[in-house]
């Protein structure tokens, strides 16, 4: 039995934004400046990693209700009452970690917290959405708790990295074309903003509006499909998954 490269899958084959097309709201909404996209990626990485870690630990502690991974072919809702304990558990975990990240952001980068606005709390929902792509381990052999935890972490890191790559790519395109600048972290004498010659006086302002984000997202998804086809990856599915 071969081990799936869960980290690489998260970045390439199951890339949440470009291939799976989930979590599109932040990818389109907070990518008008590079630094916004960077903080958002950090946030998702933080929340996703900690949520998965807790879930894996709970699984290792044999708390079946909270950690039972979804059956591969089962419909998403089966019980009479739609809020299953497991689902509520991950809801609580991710929203609490999101609240923690909000506080961290407020403490270390208050201006960034203001400019990201309502999109930071929405990270909780994004992590929930990504949960649908959680894979169960190999069924034929029982896994040791350490292996489970390590696999969860690798998977979460892969998804987070895939998300970050897409967000930063979109925000680079949108900010360079749309504002003619690249906004990064301010450090020392460096004010945090690089001006791109020629474009900063006559930028394509339209790209900084919401529509520009949607356009970039659409073309990114198209290019990802082109690349995926070129690599002849059969597993990369697209429409209807989100």
């Amino acid at each position, binding site marked *: 039995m071969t081990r799936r490269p869960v980290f690489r899958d998260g970045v390439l084959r199951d890339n949440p934004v470009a291939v799976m097309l*989930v979590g*599109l*709201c932040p990818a389109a909404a907070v990518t008008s400046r590079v630094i916004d996209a960077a903080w958002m990626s950090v946030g998702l990485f933080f929340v996703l990693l900690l949520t998965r870690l807790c879930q894996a630990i709970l699984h290792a502690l044999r708390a079946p209700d909270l950690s039972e991974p979804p059956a591969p072919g089962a419909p998403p809702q089966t019980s009479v009452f739609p809020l299953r304990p497991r689902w509520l558990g991950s809801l609580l975990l991710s929203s609490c970690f999101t609240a923690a990240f909000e506080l961290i952001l407020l403490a270390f980068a208050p201006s960034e917290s203001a400019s990201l606005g*309502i999109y930071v709390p*929405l990270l909780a929902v994004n992590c929930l959405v990504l949960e649908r792509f959680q894979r169960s381990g190999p069924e034929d052999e029982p896994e040791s708790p350490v292996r489970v935890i390590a696999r969860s972490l690798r998977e979460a890191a892969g998804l987070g990295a895939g998300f970050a790559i897409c967000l930063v790519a979109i925000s680079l395109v949108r900010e360079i074309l749309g504002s003619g600048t690249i906004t990064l972290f301010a450090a020392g004498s460096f004010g945090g903003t690089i001006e791109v010659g020629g474009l900063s006086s006559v930028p394509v302002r*339209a790209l900084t*509006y919401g529509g520009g984000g*949607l356009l970039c997202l659409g073309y990114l998804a198209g290019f990802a499909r082109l690349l995926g086809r070129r690599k002849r990856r059969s597993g990369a599915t697209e429409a*209807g998954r989100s």
Partner: protein
Amino acid sequence: MSLLGIILTFTLVDNIVLSRLLGICPCVSAPSDMRGTAAAAAATSLLMSLSALAGWALQTFLLEPLGLGFLRTPVFVLCVACIAGFLDLLARRAAPRLLRAARVPLAGVVFNCAALGVVLIAARGGFSALESLAVGFAAGAGFFVVLSLLTAIRERLDVESVPEWLQGLPLHLISAGLLAFAFLAFDRAFLSRLLRGW
């Protein structure tokens, strides 16, 4: 802002999908028939209105008096999830055909950011109870407008032969982007002139 102003703002000017970019996923990937669209949009609209009201109540009577502002996110997430769950339960008993037409379980609506986003927008805007309800309703109406426009556009795209690498979701996203550009015709200056004259 007057109630009419709030409703116009969140339906046209500050559209939840095209301006805030929340709830894109259902707009570009929901089933593309009109009945399903109407059912899904009506359910989402109801969920948004109720959640915005509940969010206002929680904010005013629970979080602010107790100084628990930092717990806002978990409280709101749970609140939206519970309302969605109860609406789903209700719909299963009362209108199973509506639920089947919508084709997504109502609780799944929480999976898109729209409902939670509306609650957060309403809570941050400092609205009153009635105004929060209006925000929720108007956001739902805006969602309905955009969802039906995009569904009609997608219905057309699905029967055309389009470039293969953009077929499906990428082209739906590009369509949504073009729609968003067109909706920029309704900006804040437009609204203020419309409501107050020149």
